[in-house]
């Protein structure tokens, strides 16, 4: 029980720190969202309409009071689930805006991440088991190289080849003319729009899992319990899966939870490149527009997401690894 309590205590403390950081980071920086928005609207080759800037400032409402009182107000609002109004989509609520992007990202990113984790772990485990085989070298060398490609660059390449040159896939967006919902036309569009971004994300993400799994597995293969399992005359499959892979999986599981944090980061570039209507693109937009409320909430969302994923992974770790349940830390 202690183990779980500790985890939860840590979770709450970190959550508080993250919330505070999310509050501070945007606020400590200079910049005027109103001016920026008017400028964007007009384009750079236009004179700033001062009246419009003033109106915009009045509209967005500038923060007032000391930082301290703002902080309490912010915490109070958070406690009520009030995240404010987005500047970019004013007067829509930040939560509405995020609600729109969330599904797209969840579907795209979650699918690719889970898929690549599974694929990566399987490939890595198999490569370790067949260590030094041709399969192993192809997988390690190949995945190292592919893993170093920048997702953004892959996106460009894919766009060029499959969207522009071959025209097999659309170049941007999440769907086009169909009505979102459970209808065939929409699903068809959504899938074909998601295909290239998914591939761009899929190409690079499994690599970490492959190499990580391979390394831990190789290390585990040297353990005595593997030798004993072999001495017991158990079939290879049992030894590989139940003894080696089962043990090697543990660090990967926590690694996976932590990686969920980097996820939105990777998605920013890819979603932007494909103009995909997910949270990554929203995040990019929020930064570009100095949309503090949106940015703040997105960061809060992702950090809490990671924290929760982490907590789950930790608890899961406790289930998967009986040793952790007893250990103090």
């Amino acid at each position, binding site marked *: 029980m202690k183990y779980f309590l500790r985890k939860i205590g*840590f979770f709450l*403390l*970190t959550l508080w*720190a*993250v919330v505070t*950081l999310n509050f501070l*980071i*945007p606020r400590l*920086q*200079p*910049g005027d969202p109103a001016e920026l928005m008017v400028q964007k609207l007009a384009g750079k080759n236009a004179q700033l309409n001062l009246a419009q800037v003033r109106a915009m400032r009045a509209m967005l409402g500038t923060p007032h009071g000391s930082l301290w009182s703002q902080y309490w107000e912010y915490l109070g609002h958070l406690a009520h689930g009030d995240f404010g109004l987005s500047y970019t989509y004013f007067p829509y609520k930040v939560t509405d805006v995020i609600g729109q992007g969330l599904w797209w990202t969840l579907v795209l990113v979650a699918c690719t991440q889970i898929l690549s984790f599974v694929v990566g772990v399987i490939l890595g485990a198999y490569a370790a088991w067949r*260590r*030094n085989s041709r399969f192993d070298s192809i997988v390690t060398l190949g995945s*190292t*190289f592919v*893993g*170093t*490609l*920048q997702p*953004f*660059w892959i996106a*460009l*390449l894919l766009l*060029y080849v499959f969207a522009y040159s071959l025209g097999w896939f659309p170049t941007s967006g999440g769907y086009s003319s169909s009505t979102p919902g459970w209808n065939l036309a929409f699903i068809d569009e959504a899938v074909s729009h998601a295909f290239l971004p998914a591939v761009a994300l899929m190409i690079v993400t499994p690599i970490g899992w492959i190499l*990580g799994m391979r*390394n*831990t597995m*190789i*290390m585990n*293969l*040297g353990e005595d319990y593997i030798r004993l399992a072999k001495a017991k005359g158990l079939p290879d499959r049992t030894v590989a899966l139940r003894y080696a892979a089962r043990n090697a999986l543990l*660090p*990967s599981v*926590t*690694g996976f*939870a*932590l990686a969920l*944090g*980097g996820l*939105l*980061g*990777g998605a*920013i*570039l890819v979603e*932007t490149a494909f103009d995909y209507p997910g949270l990554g693109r929203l*995040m*990019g937009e929020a*930064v570009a527009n100095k949309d503090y409320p949106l*940015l703040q909430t*997105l*960061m809060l969302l*992702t*950090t809490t997401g*990671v*924290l929760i994923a*982490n907590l789950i992974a*930790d608890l899961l*770790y406790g289930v998967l690894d009986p040793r952790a349940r007893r*250990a103090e*830390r």
Partner: protein
Amino acid sequence: MTTSGFTPPGAPDQAKNIEVDPEGTAKEASAERPEAWYSVIWSSKKARVGVITVGIFILIAVFAPLIAPHDPTDSSFAPLMGPSGTNWLGTTTNGQDVASQLIFGTRVSLIVGLFGGLLATGIALIIGMISGYAEGTWLDDVLTFVTNVALVIPVLPLIITLVAYSSTRGVTLIIFVIAITSWAGAARAKRAQIITLRNRDFVTAAKFSGEGTLRIVFREIMPNMTSLVAASFVGAATGAIGAEAGLAVLGLGDNNQVSWGTMLYQSNAQGAIAQGLFIWVFAPGLLLAILITAMCFVNFGVDLLSNPHLRED
């Protein structure tokens, strides 16, 4: 936190792998000396390829002014030229020489890799070492907490936020930003490592020899962590190079310097694909991948140091 990354916490347990020596001669002794780190790294074919490739890149970076046919920022050529004798790989839309930009771009990547890696490793080392050595005290709790927060905050958005809001974007800033957003994982690994080392008898023995805490941490314990430090340096450097390119692609790079990332950004912004300037778009990405791959290969060699299980590959 019990979660752990992929870095195996096990120490390179050199002492125990070593055969006991006969009363013996120096010659016999040398046969049993653990291999020097460089020969271990060099012994891996992948690492060899990596070291040579990185070496070539370093040479290119150092001698860029001699190798490059032109000044990378010289925009006096006709724009949009195909490859030719003067412009080996053609020119950009601004009339700059693509080949020279690629050659000079190596510099930024390597500098960012080197210093970003050093800085991140340095921060990780100090925080990880102190927190590990002080395990169980409030100091450790505080540092662990900071590390965990840093680990949880999504890196790229944070970098974007930091860079977007700072007024100048020199390479120094980029290095700094990359370093302070990427030290946490390594710090955690080092903490785990030092905890295993801290309980070794030789640390207690050093106390009995009258050594002070700092000396114990940095003179007694740290020399035993070289392989981990080396591995985390290569890892951090690799990450930094990628991050610099990522930032540049988002338009958050240092635009006063030519780097592969800024080339990618510029070429994309100028619609290079649409204009058929493929070399300009795709070459920087490819070089970036080759450099990072080479560094990963070096890291395979470094892994052998910390994980002898891998040595018989």
